[in-house]
C-alpha cells in the first residue's frame, strides 16, 4: 500500500509540474536541459522532419534517428499524451530500479555467504541482515521518486528520462540474468548517449555471475549480443535516414567533439571555451579518454568480485566526466547509492559532500541569473559552482570506494585498530 502511495504521489508531482505555468522555465533550465537532451531541440528536430527537412543537416538536433521517428509518431498522432507518457516512463524507471535493487540485494547476500568463513569473529555484527537489505531497496525507490534532481528532470521532459529508463531496464535485465534484454537496452542507451558503453563490462560480469557456468563463454556471448544489437541500431538509424550515415556527426560526433559550449553542470563547457585553439584536439581527446576509457580497466580489475559497485561507480564517473551532463543523470546514480547504505558509516566526507550538493544546487541558478539576466556576475561565478559540484560528486564516489575497501578490511581483520598492542591507523600501501 505504502509503495502504491509513493508512486501515486511522485506521479502526481511530476504531472503537476509539467502542467505548471513555469514549465517552460523548467524545461529551459541550463542544469536540466543540455543541447543533447532538451525538449526544445527535440521539438525542432521533429518539426523539421515533419516538413521534409533533414534535421541532421543543421545543428539543432542531436538525438538518434530512432528517437526522431518515435517522437515524430507521438507528436503527430497523440501529442496530448506526452506529459502523462513522460511521467509513466519515469515511474517505470523507478519501478525497474526497485526491482533491480531487490535482485542486487540477493546478490549481496550470496556474496556475503561466500566470504562468511573469512569474516573475523568480532565483525560478525557488521554482516548485512535481511531487514537491512529489504530497507535498501525501499530507499532506492524513494530516492528515485522524490529526489528533486530526477523530479525536475522528468518535469523538464528531457530525453534523459528515456535514457534513464533504458539504463534501468538494462540493469534489471542484467540483475535477473536476461542477457538479450540487458544487451539490447544497453545498446539502445549507448546509441543515444554513447557513455553507457562503459556499462557493458559490469553487465557482462553480472550476467556471468548469475548464469553460472563458463565465464569466458558468457563474456563473449554478452559482448557479441551487444555489438550485434548496437550495429543493428546504427544500421537501422541509417535506414531511417534513407541510408545516410551523416547523422553520426550530429550524434556521436557532437558528443565527442563538444562543439556547443552552452554551460551545463559538467566540466567541459568553460574549459573548452577558454582553450587555446592549438591544444583543443589534445584536450578533447584527454577529457574523452578520461570519461570513456581511463577508469574502466583498473576498476574492473580491482572490483571484479563486486559488479554492482563497479556499475554504480562507472555510471557516476561517466556522469561527472561526460561532455553534456544534466541533473537527470546525477539523479539516476544518486538513486543507486542507498544500496550502499551499509558503507555510510565508513564514509568520512558525508557531511561535506551533502553540504556541497545543497549549496551548489542553490548557488548555481542564482549565479546563472546574475550572469545572464542581471549582468552583475560573469562566467567565472557559474564555472566556480559547476566546479564545486563536480568536486562534491568526485568526493562522494572516491569516499564510497574508500568506505568499501575499509569495510572489506574490517570484516576480515576486525574493527580493532592495533598492531601488537600499539595504536595503528589504516593506510594505503
Amino acid at each position, binding site marked *: 500500500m505504502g509503495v502504491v502511495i509513493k508512486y501515486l504521489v511522485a506521479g502526481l508531482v511530476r504531472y503537476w509540474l509539467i502542467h505548471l505555468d513555469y514549465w517552460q522555465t523548467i524545461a529551459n533550465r541550463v542544469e536540466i536541459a543540455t543541447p543533447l537532451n532538451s525538449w526544445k531541440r527535440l521539438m525542432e528536430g521533429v518539426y523539421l522532419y515533419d516538413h521534409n527537412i533533414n534535421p541532421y543537416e543543421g545543428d539543432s538536433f542531436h538525438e538518434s534517428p530512432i528517437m526522431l521517428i518515435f517522437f515524430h509518431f507521438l507528436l503527430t498522432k497523440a501529442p496530448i499524451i506526452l506529459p502523462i507518457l513522460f511521467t509513466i516512463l519515469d515511474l517505470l524507471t523507478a519501478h525497474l530500479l526497485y526491482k533491480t535493487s531487490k535482485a542486487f540485494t540477493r546478490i549481496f547476500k550470496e556474496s556475503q555467504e561466500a566470504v562468511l568463513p573469512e569474516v573475523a569473529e568480532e565483525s560478525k555484527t557488521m554482516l548485512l541482515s535481511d531487514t537491512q537489505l529489504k530497507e535498501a531497496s525501499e530507499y532506492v525507490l524513494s530516492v528515485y521518486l522524490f529526489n528533486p534532481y530526477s523530479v525536475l528532470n522528468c518535469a523538464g521532459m528531457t530525453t534523459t528520462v528515456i535514457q534513464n529508463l533504458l539504463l534501468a531496464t538494462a540493469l534489471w535485465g542484467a540483475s535477473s540474468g536476461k542477457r538479450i534484454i540487458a544487451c539490447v537496452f544497453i545498446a539502445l542507451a549507448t546509441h543515444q548517449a554513447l557513455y553507457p558503453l562503459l556499462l557493458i563490462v559490469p553487465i557482462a560480469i553480472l550476467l556471468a555471475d548469475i548464469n553460472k557456468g563458463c565465464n569466458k563463454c558468457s563474456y563473449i556471448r554478452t559482448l557479441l549480443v551487444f555489438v550485434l544489437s548496437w550495429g543493428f541500431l546504427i544500421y537501422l538509424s541509417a535506414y531511417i535516414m534513407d541510408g545516410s550515415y551523416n547523422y553520426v556527426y550530429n550524434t556521436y560526433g557532437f558528443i565527442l567533439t563538444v562543439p556547443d559550449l552552452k554551460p551545463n553542470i559538467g566540466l567541459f563547457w568553460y574549459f573548452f571555451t577558454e582553450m587555446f585553439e592549438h591544444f583543443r584536439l589534445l584536450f578533447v581527446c584527454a577529457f574523452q579518454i578520461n570519461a570513456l576509457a581511463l577508469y574502466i580497466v583498473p576498476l574492473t580489475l580491482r572490483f571484479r568480485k563486486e559488479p554492482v559497485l563497479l556499475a554504480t561507480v562507472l555510471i557516476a564517473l561517466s556522469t561527472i566526466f561526460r561532455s553534456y551532463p544534466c541533473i537527470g543523470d546525477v539523479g539516476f546514480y544518486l538513486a543507486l547509492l542507498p544500496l550502499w547504505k551499509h558503507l555510510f558509516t565508513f564514509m568520512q566526507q558525508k557531511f561535506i559532500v551533502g553540504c556541497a550538493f545543497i549549496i551548489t544546487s542553490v548557488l548555481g541558478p542564482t549565479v546563472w541569473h546574475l550572469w545572464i539576466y542581471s549582468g552583475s556576475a560573469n562566467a567565472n561565478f557559474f564555472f566556480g559552482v559547476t566546479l564545486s559540484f563536480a568536486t562534491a560528486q568526485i568526493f562522494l*564516489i572516491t569516499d564510497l570506494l574508500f568506505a568499501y575497501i575499509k569495510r572489506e578490511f574490517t570484516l576480515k581483520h576486525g574493527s580493532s585498530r592495533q598492531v601488537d598492542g600499539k595504536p595503528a591507523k589504516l593506510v594505503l600501501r
Partner: protein
Amino acid sequence: MESVRRLLLYNIFFIVFSCIHCDVFKEELFIKSLPPSHLYTHFQFVTLVNSDTSSFHSHLAPRSLVEVISRFHVEELHLTLTEGQWRHNQWGYPVLDAAPGAELYAWFSADVVDVDIQWKKLTSTLSGLFCASLNFIENFNTVIPQMTLWPTGAVKAGQNVTSHLRYASLPREIVCTENLTPWKKLLPCESSKGFSALLNSRMIHNTNYHSVGVHVRKNCISNDCSENNLEIKQTVGLVYDYDILTSSEWSFRKLYGQGLPGACPLSSDSKIYVDVTSNDTQPFTLIPPPHSVVLSQRGGSDVKLAIYDVKPDGQMINIGIKHNRNSDLPVPIPPPLYFNRYVLGYGKEFGGIVTELTNNCWTSINVVVLENAPWWLPIQLSTLRINGEAESSLIISQYYSPGRSRQKPYHLELLMKLPPRSTTTITIDFEFVFLKWQEYPPDANHGFYIGSALILANLPTAKNYTSLPNTGTTFDSMLNASKLWYPIVFRTNGAMVSLPTPDFSMPYNVICLACTVVALAFGPLHNICTKELVLKPVGTPVSLLQKVFNLFKRKRD
C-alpha cells in the same frame, strides 16, 4: 584660349576613343527632397562596354573591374558599401536599396563548376579592389537566396540562376574615405572632372546616410538577345539633414562644398534631375532655371522633374533652391509598404527576432521575406509565428536551410501575401550561442550585428518609387514608365544582440582548475586500484620541542 584648346583636345579624344569602340559613358544626378527634413541625392555613372572588346583592352571601362568580371565568370554583380539606415516609412524608397555595412551578391555564369571557390576568389579580389573587409565573407555568412533575388540583366534561357547566386552581407563593416577613393578611380574622369568632382569625402561622410555601390550586369542589344553589352553602374546615394545644412535651402556649394565644374568630357550624356513635385504645394525657385521641366506619370503618381543638361565647357554650375515664402511643413506621403525589425527578450539566453511588415495599400501585396541569421544566432523554425499563429494562411511558400555552427548560416525565405491595409508580424525565436573565447571580436561587449532581412515586393503603385525599370539604364527610362508591377528589393534595418561573454583573462586559470578537479578523481581512484589497505603502527604523539631535541641528538650520534 587655353581652356578652349584643351576642350577641343578632350573632344577629339572622346570621339576617337569612345565612338570607334562604342564604349559609352553617362553621368547623372537625381535630387529629391524628402520632406520634412531631408534631401536625397543620387549619383549614377554608367559605362556601357561592347562585349566584343576584350577585357585587356578597355577604353572607358575600368580595366581592373572588367578583368575581375571576365576572370571569375561573373554574369551580374552588386556591391554596396553603406553607412546609416534608410528610413523607408519616412523617406519613401531609394533608387537602389542597400543593407547597412557591406553587401555583395553575384551570379556566376553557368559554366562555373565550383561556385563556392569562385565566390571566395571574387570576394578576396574585390576586397583588395575596394579596400573593404569583403575577405571576411566565408561559407558561414553566405546564403543562396531561392526566391528573393533575381538577375536584372540578360540571362540565357533555361539556366538555373539560383544555384549560381551567392549573397553575403557584413553589417559590421564601416564605410569610409578609403573605400570611396578606389571607387572614384574606376571612373573615366576620376574625380578631376564631371559629377564625381562633387564627391568630396569630407562632405559625404557628414551625411545621415551614404551608400556607395557598383552594379555590373549584361544587357541585351538586339531583340533576340544574341548580342549583349556590359553595363557598369557606379552609384552614390546621399541623404542630407536640413538641420545639419542649417536651412532647407540647399545648393551644390552647401551640399558638396563646391560647385559643379562642368560635365566629364568623356561622357556622352550628363544630366541633372531635380524632383520639383513639391513646388505645387511649397513654392520654391530653382537657381539657375532648368533647361526643361517634364511631367512623368507612372503608376498613379505624377512626378515633375526639372532637367539640366550639363555641357563639358568647364563652367562652374551651382544649382540651388530659394523658397518663395515660408509655408507650412509638407507632410510626407507614407509609402505603400514599410517594415521594421527588432529583437525580443531580455537576458542572454533566449530571444526572438520580429519583422513587422505594414501594407498601406488598397490591395494585397506579394512579398518574399528572407531572414538570414548568422550561425551564432540559431533560430528555431518550430517557433515561427505569423501574427502569433503557427499555421498561417498568409504563407504561400517557404524555404528553410538550417545552419551549422561555424559552417553555415540559418536561412529562411517566406513567400507571403500581405492583406490590404494590415500589419503582419513574423516572429522567430533564437537561442544565444556561447562562443570560444578567441571567436569574439575585439570589444566583445559592443554587441554583435545581425544583418538585414531582404524583402522582395511587387508593388502595385509607383508611389514613392524612384527605381529605374529593369530594362532601363538611365533616368530618362523612368519617365512615364507605367508597368503592371513595380518590383523592388528592400533591406530592413539591422539589429544587434549582446552575446554572453566568458572572462577573457582566465584561460590559464580555467585550464588549471578544471584539470585539478579531474586529478582529484584520478589520484584517489589510482590509489584505490593499485594499493592495499594495511594497518600501520603510529607512535605516541611527539611534541615539537621533542622533535627538535631528537634532531640534535641524532646529529651528535
